[in-house]
Each structure stands twice: as C-alpha cells, then as structure tokens.
C-alpha cells in the first residue's frame, strides 16, 4: 500500500490550479474517465497539469482516482482535466450509467466476432 502521509499537507490545493476552482467545462463528473492522448513529451504545462498527465500515462483513470493519486481535491482535478481537454491532451468519457452498461454475454459475442474477423 502507498504509505499514507500523515500530517497536514505542505502545499495547499489551490496552488495546483492557481486558485481557480471553476473548470472551463462542466462536463466532467467524478467518474468520468480521463485518457491521455499526448505522447510523453509535454510542453510548458503548469506543474499540476503535468502531474495529472503523467498519472494518466499508464492508462485511463477516473477523476476521483486521479484525485486520490495526486492527493488533490476532486474540484482541483476537474479544473486540471478541463484545461488539458481544452488543449487536446486528454480526452474524457462520461461515466457509463449502470443501465447502459453492456451485457457481459454481448461483449463476449462481440469479442468472438472480432476474433473471427481477424482470422
């Protein structure tokens, strides 16, 4: 397990977004899935955006997961993610509502079909 950091944080959350808590887009929910679309070379990004992009390097993360990983409040990650989406470095996918989640059997059949296509 990650060694839990005790004590109060040295760097407050507002610093990550330069004090901004209103994201540039309101489409992001707690369970929106963020995916990095950029290569490993980032330009002159603010430090926290850079950190978020780095955390997405290994795959996709939901907003809350990224928040936990970066030890930032969800509100800050929303702002950061919205900024990255604006720059086209990250794409976000809205969370799948439970009712709309595909049937497991259907997925299996699709996978089988794809395999059949490939062969």
């Amino acid at each position: 397990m990650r060694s839990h950091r005790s004590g109060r944080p040295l760097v407050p959350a507002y610093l990550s977004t330069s004090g901004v808590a209103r994201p540039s887009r309101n489409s992001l929910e707690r369970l929106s899935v963020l995916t990095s679309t950029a290569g490993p070379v980032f330009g002159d990004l603010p430090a926290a955006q850079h950190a978020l992009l780095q955390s997405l390097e290994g795959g996709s993360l939901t907003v809350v997961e990224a928040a936990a990983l970066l030890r930032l409040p969800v509100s800050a990650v929303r702002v950061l993610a919205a900024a990255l989406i604006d720059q086209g470095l990250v794409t976000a996918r809205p969370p799948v509502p439970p009712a709309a989640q595909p049937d497991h059997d259907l997925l299996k059949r699709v996978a089988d079909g794809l395999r059949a296509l490939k062969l």
Partner: protein
Amino acid sequence: MIEIPELAFGGLAAGTVSALALGSGLWRSRRERARLRQEMTGLRHQAERSARAGAEEAERIRQAFTAELEHLAARRMPAEASRTAHPHVPVPGPVGPEGAATEPVLEALRTAVLQERKRVDAAARAGMRGTTREIQASLYRLQDILHGLQQRYDEPELAQDLYSLDHENEQSLRRAQVAAVVCGAWVGLAREESHLVDAVTGGQARLSGYRRVKLHNHLDPGTALVSHAVEPVAIIAAELLDNALRHSSPDTSVVVNLEHVHNGVAVTVDDAGVGMAPDERAAAQRVVAGTDPIMFSDLGDPPRMGLAAIGQLTRQFDLSVDLSTPSPYGGVRAVLLVDKHLLSHVDPALRPAAASTSPSTRTGEVPRPEPLAEHAGHTHAPAPQPVAGGSREADTHQPVSGTTEPVSGTTEPVSGTTEPAPGPARPEPAAGELPRRRRRQVSPDQAAMIRPSAAEAAAPARSPEETAAALGALQSATAAARDAARPEGTPPR
C-alpha cells in the same frame, strides 16, 4: 686694712661686668622679640592671603561641578538613554576636566536602561508569543476544517470559495507564525521529512502574489529536508518571496531556483524590483544573519517582522541567508543555503512530491521499484530490460509493427491543434488474440506515480491499474470498431 678697698673694687668690677652682661642680654632679647613679631605679622598676612585664594578656588570648583552636573542631567543622561535605542545619537562629553568623575554615572545609567529595556522587551514578546501561539493553533484547526470541506464538496462555486478561504487562512497563519517566531517561539508545527521543493512551494502558497513566482527545480528527485528543518525553510522561503514580491512591480515575476551546491542546496530568489541601496542591504544582511538579539522595539511601527524572523530561524537552525549581492535582474537576490546535515532523501517512488510542485529538471537515475519489471513482463515487453532506459528505449527493442495501432489513431481529439507525438511501436499480438491496447512502458518516475510501492508485490493478482487498463482497452476497442463502421470523416462522438 688694705683688703677692704680691694674687695670693694673687685665687687664693683664684678657688678659692672654683670650689669653690662645683663644689659646686652636684655637688648638682644628685645630685638629678637621685635623680629619675631614682624615675622608673625608677615605670616599672618600670608595665611590670610592664601585662605582667601583657597576660598576662591573652592568656589570656582563648586561652580564648575554644578555646571557639570547640570550638563550631565540636562544633556548627557538623556542622550545616553536614547542612545540605547538609537545608537547613532551622539553623547556630548563633559564640559571641563572635572566631568571625568561623572563617567561612572553614565556607565551605571547605560546598564540600568539596557536592562530595563530588555525586561520590557521580553515582557512584550512573552505576551505576544502567548497570543500568537493560540491564534496559530486555532488557524491550524480552521485549516483542517477547510481541507475536510475541500475533500467533501467539489461543486465549483463552493470549491472556489473554499480555495479563497484556504488562501486567506494560509496568509493569516503565516503572519501569526512569523510573529511567534520573532517573539522567540518555536515554529509551531512538527512536520515529517519532506521534499525540499514541497517546503519552498508551501512557502510560496502562503503569499497573496504566489502566481508571480516561477520555480525552477534543478534538484535530484527525492532531495528532502530533515523533519525539523521543513517548517523553518518554508517560513524563510515565504518571507524571502514576500519581500521579493512586495518590492517588485506586479507585472514582473519572481524567479526561484533550487540547485545543488557543494555544501548542500541553494534556494535562490531573484526579483526584478527596485533593489536596495548598499547600506539598506548591509542592514538587512545584519538582521538576516541573526547574530544580534532581536529587540521587539527595533522593528518599527508597523513592525517589520519578516527579516527578523529569518534571522531568528537562521540562528536556531543553522541555515544561512545571504542578501549581499544585487540580482542580475536589477532587484535583490536572496540566497538561502541549506546545509548538508539538514538534507535527507525521500524515495520519490514511495512518496512523490506534491502534484503542484515543479517537476525536477534532472532526469537522474531513480532506483526502479521491483514490481515494475514484473509488470513489464505482463505487458509482453522483453523482461530483462536495462533499467536505465526510458520508455522510448524500451519500446524500440520491441518488434516494430505499424498495423496494430487502432486506438491511438482513431480516438484522437477533433481539435487537432496538438499533434500527439508518434506513439511507440506496438508488439504484434499473438495469434488468436485481439489487438490490445497496451499499457505504455513507463519511465521510472512516472512509474513512481502510478505504482508507488515495492511492498505491493503481495497485492492481489490484478491491481486496479491493470483492471483499468483492461477495461480501457475493451472500451477503446469497442469505440474503434464503432468508428470504423461509420463513414469516413465523421468525427468520433
């Protein structure tokens, strides 16, 4: 018969002789007496004269002494008293040579005034210390509440207010803490070993103009401070930055550089402001060096506590701050030197620096955690990769195939403003396997963000990341298939 006249003659002769003798003796004694009398009157005159002269002299001395005392009371003592507070006040010397006797008076006065001043100052500081400590404690409690609220509520408008409150609170906290430190209190907060860049960034966050600070971190990842030096360094950084921000124009930025030097780490703060005159700089340097004890009454009104607090902390914690050189940007250059014995190392993989801190410009060797290699095995990378290699290197060793990149090709953002860097080549999937979206090979410090602990070897077989990657791959495959089914040119989603 003849004997009688002879006898008479003899008697007569003897009488005459004795009369003669007696007469001359009498005359001599009379003369002697007259001489003595004369001598006596001379002496008496002389004595009278000298007595008169003595009285005049005594009177003169008395007057001189009175004048000296008046001078002492009216001029010299007030000057001496004010000189303890203002060393540049000249103390006039004695009027005449008789004033030499008044020197011990001044000496005693000096001692007494200084002691009284120290006593009053100590009393004022004690009172202030008690108050600020309580304020500081209550502000920390407020901070805890605010952080809790920030975690709980993420509604943007509310979060905005919480951020503002948090920032205001940080600033109040800084002031209370600095006042407490100047009053001789402890910094008021025990922290654990922390990254040095965290401490400096934390100091930056306590200022109203923190957006103007540009921090360049040239330290090796993991350069940290021992626990007792964390808060002092944060306070000193905050005060140096505050001075820099305050004395430079709002449209200029304040540049901070963190660098390794032979004896430790140097934190350099440069501003492009008005700068300081040489004597101002010398005075500031004296305060910051912390060699003179701080007098509360010397700080002015309103008290300028920043430099005094720095002086207090540099003395207590064996740090050193230098303000003696002007900045190449025209303003002031402040250099905080953190000695080697205050530095330690925190594993950046286990405990990364805060997300808001500038990433290090050094891409030094970071010991790669074991599970990563294991993980690389999962993702079909050649297992015995050289540890030093970055992600690109690792990927170039793999068989090149351009055909299996459906994901990155189709899920690109529509904006097209940023050209994503060409993705590393993917390995050919084994026969009968779907084209899979692979986890990217990560560089060690990125891995540190994702895969924090070596102790996770005992974790369940499928880590959340793996699950996320697998599900992500499935989703992207679905999306790719849908996109392929659409006519060309239709933007995805």
